[in-house]
């Protein structure tokens, strides 16, 4: 601190000359300090560059691996819905038609594939069973669902768009090659030849697959049919529960603690514990949820209601902390002015302080929700991670209580399945989840920008 005179070393002008030299020439010490500053700037820029590179690598990996999931290979076929197979009695009684299981639909599909290939004049040495093997196992389910919905169509020939099996899909996407299937018993080279011929004939084509975004999970045998839609609904219902519980409780608690509570050791302990809770690993809340909500309160397993309750516990500290910060940021003069013109304490808080703190509270809530949306660990213990292929919920009560998964849980589930096609879907799911998170964070930023006031 003795070298004040040297600091503006290269500013020149009317500054007082130092004894050790000219202001216009840097002495060794100044050079050293300037070099240190330059080095520090360099470190900073390097840190940002490393961060940016990581981000670019992450985003390109996710997009590169995940976009495939949004496209799927379909096979267009005309299927003759044989009465002799589907409705033996011929009375169109739904109960009788229901008795034919999806296994009973396999021969119909086999016949349809065979006649299509013969109709196109494609030569192949494959047996009809292997020809039908190009289709997804989902085809029989799709066909049965259609017949049950339209029993009057039995006996007619109807055109269907079936999913192709995951290896065929992988072949069209370049994931599967002739070399890689050498030991694969799910597909053969002859089948791929047939696929090539069918692609040329326009029967097999790769198009956008809306079912990935709105559909339900599928079993290990038909990765091509799996979708993230139902688990998205699960996440949505959980977020509704979190919002409905965490926001009022969190805001009420922070208003009381910040504006009304006496400052004594008890409130100090509460404050410290709220901060501690924010740092508790989320799996702990899962164990708590299992013990309290399922084993003690007997709420249903795998239900988004329970998931929402668990995530509420997890989100509460985040909301309380950000709300208190927002309330603290409102200057005391606002309160004083309100009290000065005769408002009660509650009026001062609700009419003046709270509206000014609202943008901060909303931002904190949205960030808390985004955090909860991406959480998997607590859901593991309450049965929301697994094969949960329910249909989309029809009522609100169904949405809250029927078993469902959540988006991150679904991604985790896909990532650990054997078929490589699920891996692609896991990346696709990550893209959708990221879109949600980015949207929520953007809304939070916009709200803050637009409504926040600074004093």
């Amino acid at each position, binding site marked *: 601190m003795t070298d004040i005179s040297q600091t503006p070393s290269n500013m020149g002008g009317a500054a007082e000359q130092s004894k050790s030299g000219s202001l216009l020439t840097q002495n060794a010490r100044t050079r050293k300090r300037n070099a240190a500053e330059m080095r520090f700037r360099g470190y900073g820029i390097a840190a940002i560059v490393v961060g940016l590179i990581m981000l670019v690598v992450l985003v390109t990996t996710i997009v590169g691996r995940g976009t495939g999931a949004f496209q799927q290979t379909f096979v267009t076929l005309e299927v003759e819905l044989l009465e002799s197979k589907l409705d033996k009695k011929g009375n169109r009684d739904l109960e009788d038609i229901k008795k034919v*299981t*999806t*296994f009973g639909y396999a021969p119909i599909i086999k016949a349809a594939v065979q006649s299509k290939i013969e109709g196109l004049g494609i030569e192949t040495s494959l047996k009809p069973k292997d020809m039908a093997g190009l289709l997804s*196992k989902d085809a029989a*389910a799709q066909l*049965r*669902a259609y017949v049950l919905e339209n029993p009057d169509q039995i006996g007619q020939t109807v055109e269907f768009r079936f999913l192709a099996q995951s290896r065929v899909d992988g072949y069209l996407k370049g994931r*599967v090659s002739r070399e*890689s*299937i*050498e*030991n*694969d*018993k*799910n597909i053969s080279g002859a089948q791929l030849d047939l696929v090539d011929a069918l692609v040329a004939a326009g029967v097999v084509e790769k198009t956008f697959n809306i079912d990935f975004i709105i559909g339900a999970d*599928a*079993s*290990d*045998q*038909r990765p091509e049919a799996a979708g993230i839609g139902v688990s998205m609904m699960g996440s949505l219902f959980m977020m*509704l*529960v979190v919002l*409905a*519980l965490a*926001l*009022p409780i969190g805001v009420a608690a922070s208003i009381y603690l910040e504006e009304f509570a006496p400052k004594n050791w008890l409130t100090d302990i509460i404050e410290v514990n709220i901060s501690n809770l924010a740092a508790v690993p989320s799996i702990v809340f899962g164990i708590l949820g299992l013990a309290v909500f*399922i*084993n003690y309160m*007997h*709420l*249903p*397993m*795998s239900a988004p*209601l329970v998931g929402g309750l668990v995530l509420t516990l997890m989100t509460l500290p985040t909301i309380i902390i950000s709300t208190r910060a927002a309330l603290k940021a409102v200057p005391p003069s606002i309160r004083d002015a309100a009290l000065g013109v005769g408002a009660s304490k509650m009026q001062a808080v*609700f009419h003046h302080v709270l509206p000014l703190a609202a943008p901060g509270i909303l931002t904190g809530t949205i960030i808390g929700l985004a955090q909860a949306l991406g959480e998997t660990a607590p859901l593991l213990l309450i*049965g929301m*991670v*697994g*094969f*949960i*292929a*329910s249909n989309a919920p029809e009522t*609100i*009560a169904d949405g*809250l*209580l*029927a*078993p469902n998964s959540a988006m991150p849980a679904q991604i985790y589930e896909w*990532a*650990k*399945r*054997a*078929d*490589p096609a699920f891996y692609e879907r896991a990346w696709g799911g990550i893209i959708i989840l990221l879109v949600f998170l980015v949207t929520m964070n953007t809304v939070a930023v916009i709200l803050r920008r637009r409504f926040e006031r600074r004093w």
Partner: protein
Amino acid sequence: MSFVKLSASALAIAAVSATAAAARDQVQVAGSSTVLPYASIVAEAFGENFDFPTPVVESGGSSAGLKRFCEGVGENTIDVANASRKIKDKEIKACAEAGVTDIIEVRIGYDGIVFASDINGNGFEFTPTDWFLALSDEIMVDGKMVANPNKTWADVNPAFPAQPLQAFIPGTKHGTREVFEDKVILAGCEATGAFEHLLANATGDSDKAKKKAAEKACISLRTDGVSVDIDGDYTETLARIESNKDGIGVFGLAFYENNTDKLQVATMSGIVPSTESIATGEYPVSRPLFFYVKKAHIGVIPGLKEYAEFFISDEVAGPDGPLAEYGLVSDPELAKTQEAVANEDVMGGNS
């Protein structure tokens, strides 16, 4: 303050609907991650073909599943536990203590355990002895038990390349681990004569206790990082092999068959694992797969019995069914199992 009213009413709705719909109407399954793919295939087909909702199938390992199964009877406990090994006496006891007495055991078929390495690496032809010499804590050298000195596969068997030993085996919460210990390590232990040596030096009150002690000594694996326990699923094992090309992993046959582009399979005692060689019993490392049903839940949880019957019906678990197509070796005694499930026969007779 409308949001206060809104949230209060939302709470009320949630509370009312929770009590109104307390009865669970879907079957809840948990357990072995080896059985999970089969169970999910069945659950999906069950949901499609019946008017019952699709069962929920969770994984987590056989032991974890059976532990949850034995927590008690009631709607907040699972109905079915999948297991890649038989339920242990200890677990039956734990079940009984929690009130779960009538358990129906259902064998769904057989599954092979394969040893696979990176597709571009060296191929192997193993015998159980090789695995014992590679992974055991102590092996016999010149009639004495010494700490395992082997560092490469060439040390284990001169016929193998000098590739560093590195194995990824299932963790102890997996049923697969037990089969690996019984059918591979223990078999190797006996083949090298180490078992006899251990048995002769074992301390215990009875022959049975001695045998148990010797077996335990046999299957204790080295802890110097050569053998790595994988507590996750086979995908984790696969990821480890992809990052460490020297590694050899333990997989289920079905998993290997879905990843033939990344893995090459090793033979065991000269036999290539396949559904055929497992069905004939030639391939030695196979095990039955089970699921366990709580009899007390039949009639309470809609669709439970139908699910169990559907699982082992000929069109699902038979030799031409979807499970066999995925990699399950179907049980030649399926008819007997079907009958037992139809009669709701519980384990241990009329206990």
